[in-house]
């Protein structure tokens, strides 16, 4: 197998595995936020902004994986 092919596999694995954790995390955050909104609909606005903030921090991990994938693919 040539180096280019190995690089492509490495990039795919980096973002593919790196997206697993944040995916689970964002799912939990979203689910819990929906639960909270269902229990307390008046606080929906506040919960939504905090949910987005939480999602962003979970997503940052996926972004790091994306950076690695981009570095492998293009640099």
């Amino acid at each position, binding site marked *: 197998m040539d180096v280019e092919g190995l690089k492509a596999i490495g990039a795919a694995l980096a973002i593919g595995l790196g997206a697993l954790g944040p995916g689970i995390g964002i799912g939990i955050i979203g689910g819990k936020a929906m639960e909270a909104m269902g229990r307390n609909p008046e606080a929906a606005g506040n919960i939504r902004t905090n949910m987005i903030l939480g999602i962003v921090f979970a*997503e940052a991990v996926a*972004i790091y994986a994306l950076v690695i994938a981009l570095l492998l693919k293009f640099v």
Partner: protein
Amino acid sequence: MLKKLFTVRNLVILLLVVALFVVSGLLGLKVPPPEVSLAAEPVLHIGGFAVTNALLTAWIVMIILVVAALITTRHYPKDLDNAKNSDLVPSGFSNFVEWMVEGFYGFSESVAGKWVTKFFPIIMTIFLFIVVSNWIGLIPGVGTIGLLEHPASGAEGFAAKGAILTAQPAASGAEGFILVPFLRAPSTDLNFTVALALVAVFMAQYFGVAAQKLGYFKKFLDLSGFKQGAFMGVIQLFVGVLELISELARIISYSFRLFGNIFAGEVLLAVLAFLIPYVVSLPFLGLELFVGFIQAFVFMMLALVFFTLSTIRHGEEEHH
């Protein structure tokens, strides 16, 4: 509801789309698969300074924002003291902008409290600049119209039919072409996002110093732990180092979050357009509109939260 869609205008648009489809099919024009380039390409040179397509688009975004601001404030009376009530009522575009800015101001106030007057101009500018930068990449023609240039040595070029790049590889001997777009969404250039991230992180330090003077740097170098023994002192020093690292890591996470999301979105759109043309791209264009807004909002909100955190004295949040 459905009947409203059958207007003359919509029919003309539909016919035009179908006509484009037929004409491009008849001419047998096939464009090459999208060339994904991580760095922005220079399109024009002013003196010795290479202007990249992302920088050019950033200037266009600035012009759009300035013109929008002028249009918004055009109807405002010069002399506010003697203005009639009816002159102050906004309408149309002004009304929309005022509604939007007021909404964001209310939200910022709920987070930042009394600091909102200091924070709001910066974060709102960041938000508007980013959201227009994200959306400008979704306009048809941005990224697809450009100069035909010879590729760097080693790269594969394509044959051009008139001004249109075709999918055929260049004939042996003749040099092929690649497309260098005139315009490119600024957020898909890392320089743009790093610049904004540096501004956001630097302003957080500035507001920290403005709020608590030199006491702000106690966060990074905390010697008060030595009062409770050497062990606690070393731990406090280490916590300070961690604070410094987290401050620097913010530059990376700010910039790569925006860049990664928008760049990945553009690549996704380009790839989808070649996998299943015309139809499947449409819902993803809607998704990218949403992502562009959310990422701008997230950048703004993180800047707001970090500004606010840096104005609060360290350790204060634990015992109040």
